[in-house]
């Protein structure tokens, strides 16, 4: 039996004997078959185990990360963490490591997904390519099994396993492109061929795209677009550190009506329809955190440090990042937007009447964090909506929107929600996703036009 993440974490704690310490151990085994045209061109198999040791000395924290797990490697890790701690200036507000806790059930591990072989991963990519029936497709199939443990000298011991699988398909030819993706912690819930067919079907409707005059339009946003806008908005606005530093839109607005009453947003890592996690990188239990309830700002997410700084009895909500990234604050990584009543995105088009239909966004940039202003492009399925129906295709549109304005006049949301992958698989694998509906808004500002669809 390979050593578990918790066993590795215990060994790291022993290597740091004599110090107050927290250890996060992360074990990954994953495969990603990336394809372009009809060929896999970037196949990547990863086997890794990484440990992060935080040594705490009289209000000072030093962090060292490494993946050499023999006794010499761990001794060196402890030396580097201790040296770092000694160089810190003391922080009187620094909270101690998290105490032991009861952890919630978070069922996010699937044996079948974990057991996928490289050959099977390649076959699942192949099935997407084959289902496109000769239409060029670009994307990937990936699956991974990860194990994470947090152990601390306070007696804290936490361990969890999670799996994830994603198929992403861009169908693209000259002047035409469509997009679809599916993600789950159970590979059996993905239909890679159907995902490819959906992408090809969208692409087939995008030829001979028209331009559009820049102005504010009513718009239908598919879940892919909703997920990405919420993700970028959340980095500053749903982040406890953002609130403390007043770059959050909710600074001075907590408890106020900020969005349309149809909008409710939470962060819920325990929902089995998402990618469940039981605890964060400090070993604090996950819980559902209401962020927006019926349009009213109810909260943001916190880690132990930002919660301590906030005072007023604020506790961590279980949203700490790894210690080496904690300077960015606490982030919601399981966004959950409440559904509405619309039967489908097409029903939302009826509510829009005259406007546009957006499948997916590209390369977002935060223009003004405090006002939630974000720019980006639409991509792979942008259409005009006329008389309540999706109509002629449009070229990729430059938009510059205030997310709060966009969410302040919501015409409707779909009953069905989609789990949208938010991982780009940089660094160690920690899969995240948002569970969101499609949405219709009265306020989507187009500020320019770009290239047409396709490659």
């Amino acid at each position, binding site marked *: 039996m390979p050593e578990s993440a918790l066993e590795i974490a215990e060994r790291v704690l022993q290597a740091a004997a004599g110090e107050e310490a927290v250890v996060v151990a992360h074990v990954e085994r994953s*495969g990603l*078959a990336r394809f*372009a045209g*009809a*060929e*896999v061109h*970037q*196949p990547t*198999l*990863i*086997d*890794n*185990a990484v440990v992060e040791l935080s040594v705490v000395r009289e209000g000072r924290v*030093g*962090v*060292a*990360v*490494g993946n*050499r797990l023999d006794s010499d490697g761990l001794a*060196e890790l402890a030396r*580097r963490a201790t040296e*770092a701690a000694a*160089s810190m*200036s003391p*922080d009187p507000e620094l909270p101690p490591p998290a105490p032991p806790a009861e952890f919630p059930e978070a069922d996010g591990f699937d044996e079948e997904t974990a057991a996928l072989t*490289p*050959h099977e*991963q*390649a*076959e699942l*990519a192949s099935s997407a*390519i084959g289902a496109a029936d000769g239409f060029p497709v*670009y994307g*990937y199939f990936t699956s991974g099994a990860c194990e994470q443990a947090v152990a601390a000298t306070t007696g804290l011991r936490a361990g969890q396993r999670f799996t994830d699988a994603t198929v*992403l398909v*861009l169908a693209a030819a000259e002047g035409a492109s469509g997009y679809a993706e599916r993600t789950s912690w159970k590979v059996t819930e993905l239909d890679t061929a159907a995902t490819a067919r959906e992408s090809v079907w969208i692409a087939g409707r995008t030829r001979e795209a028209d331009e559009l005059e820049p102005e504010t339009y009513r718009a239908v946003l598919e879940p892919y677009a909703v997920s990405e806008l919420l993700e970028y908005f959340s980095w500053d606005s749903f982040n406890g550190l953002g609130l403390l530093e*007043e770059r959050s839109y909710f600074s001075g607005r907590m408890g106020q009506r900020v969005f349309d009453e149809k909008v409710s947003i939470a962060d819920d890592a325990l929902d089995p329809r998402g990618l469940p996690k039981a605890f964060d990188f400090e070993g604090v239990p996950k819980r559902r955190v209401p962020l927006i309830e019926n349009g009213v700002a109810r909260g943001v997410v916190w880690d132990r440090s930002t919660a301590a700084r906030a005072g007023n009895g604020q506790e961590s909500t279980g949203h700490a990042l790894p210690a*080496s990234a*904690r300077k960015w604050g606490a982030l919601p990584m399981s966004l959950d937007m409440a559904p509405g009543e619309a039967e489908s995105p097409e029903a939302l088009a009826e509510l829009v009447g005259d406007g546009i239909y957006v499948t997916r966004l590209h*390369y*977002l*940039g935060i*223009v003004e*964090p405090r*006002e939630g*202003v974000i*720019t980006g*492009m639409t*991509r792979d399925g942008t259409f005009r909506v006329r008389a309540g129906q999706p109509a002629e295709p449009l070229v990729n549109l*430059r938009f*510059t*929107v*205030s997310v709060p*304005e966009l969410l302040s006049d919501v015409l409707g949301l779909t009953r069905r929600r989609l789990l949208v992958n938010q991982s*780009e*698989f*940089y660094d160690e694998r920690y899969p995240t996703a948002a569970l969101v509906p499609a949405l219709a808004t009265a306020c989507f500002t187009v*500020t320019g*036009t*770009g290239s047409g669809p396709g490659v």
Partner: protein
Amino acid sequence: MRDLCSSAVEAALAAGASYADARAVVRRSQAVGTKNGRVDDLSDVETEGIGVRVLVGGAWGFACDRRLEQDAARQTAERACDFARAAPGGHDRALAAIEPQQGAYRTEVVRDPFDVPLSEKVELCLRAEEALRHENVNVTQAALRAQRERKVLVSSDGAELEHELVECGGGIDAIAVGDGRYQIRSYPSGHVGSSAQAGWEYVEGLALEREAPRVAEQAAALLRADPCPAGVTTIVVDAEQMQLQVHESVGHPTELDRIYGTEAAYAGTSFLKPGDLGALRYGSPLMNITADATTPGGVGTFGWDDEGVPAARKPVVVEGVLRGFLTSRETSAKIGSGTGGSMRADGWSRMPLVRMTNLHLEPGHGPVEALIADVDEGVYLETNKSWSIDDKRLNFQFGTQIAWEIKNGRLGRMLRDATYTGITHIFWGSLDGVADPEAWRMHGLTNCEKGQPGQHAHVYHGAAPARFRNVQVGVHA
């Protein structure tokens, strides 16, 4: 590490690979950050492992393992071959031929950044932050970084190469908040400062303390500044923002793997086609862009790329005409020109991709004051704040931290929340002035993202301030 890589290559060839390369990498990164007078980041990351890339029946395979051990190296090679064998597709890949390469490359440093005590780094951050103090500045922060990467590349084409690359850098930010506004000023560039492949002397030369009072004063002043008005006007763009303009609208679109579509699902493709080489007018005759993997101090500098192709200096745009692409051995073979030289991988656990190295806008003539003097009405834009560009790298929109109105050839009032937008080839076609080498600056970015799974690349850009006519500014929600 060389023996491990050789074993991995042998194992791959024995398992049926027609080509194999193995990279063993040990990378150590150190980050020190302070905010509002307290240390808020002190981390030391060291990871190691081996990555093996193979061609089996014309299909790529790649696998990696953290263990730098003989058994692990051979097993990794075999797994890579298995994955390649399972890959769907017709597979007809060729690599441009290169001479077998052997050698070693090391960054020249005066003071190794890892010999600098952490306490000295913390002190430097705190002193720089102290110099940022201002009654209207709410958040001050300073950050320093250092990295050492040792890597060995062995390939079945005869490459036996060693690198020891040392980088360091840093930067400061002042953030002012008031009346519902949030303004940031940074030095020497936005987004965690600037880095170079050099010793600690680079960080000392940044003079963070010296620049801090100006940075803080400007952040505070931005709270009182007028917003940049909307309109079509002449802009003069400072060297730092020009570097990002080059990165996004020239660097990425000239990556030949994007042009062939392999990044289509994520980063996007390009408005360029292979047949545009030597024919496409990219911009005005003042536009000269060079890819130079030999630039002293560049974080994209190396002896050989991650396929074993020697570093070189190559023209990309000459007098406004497209003259070169950024390539790999595979894409060079496909286009029938060159031998590659831009393949770089993020550590041991990722496949090499076509990446920028050091990409520069060559300087022009005259001081920046002369560029401004020839503007009746316009805007001077400085330091990147936000960026976005479409999937073919045509429609872009950038925001800068600060701007000034230009009236009758002189800088006037300060402006906040400035943005400008355009279409790449039209924008570069409107270039009508680039300042001289005196105004030419280089900065290193560490956050260039590409690939699935994702990879960060460190890239370096040089540019001087440049002037563009008839540009849309002041885009608002």
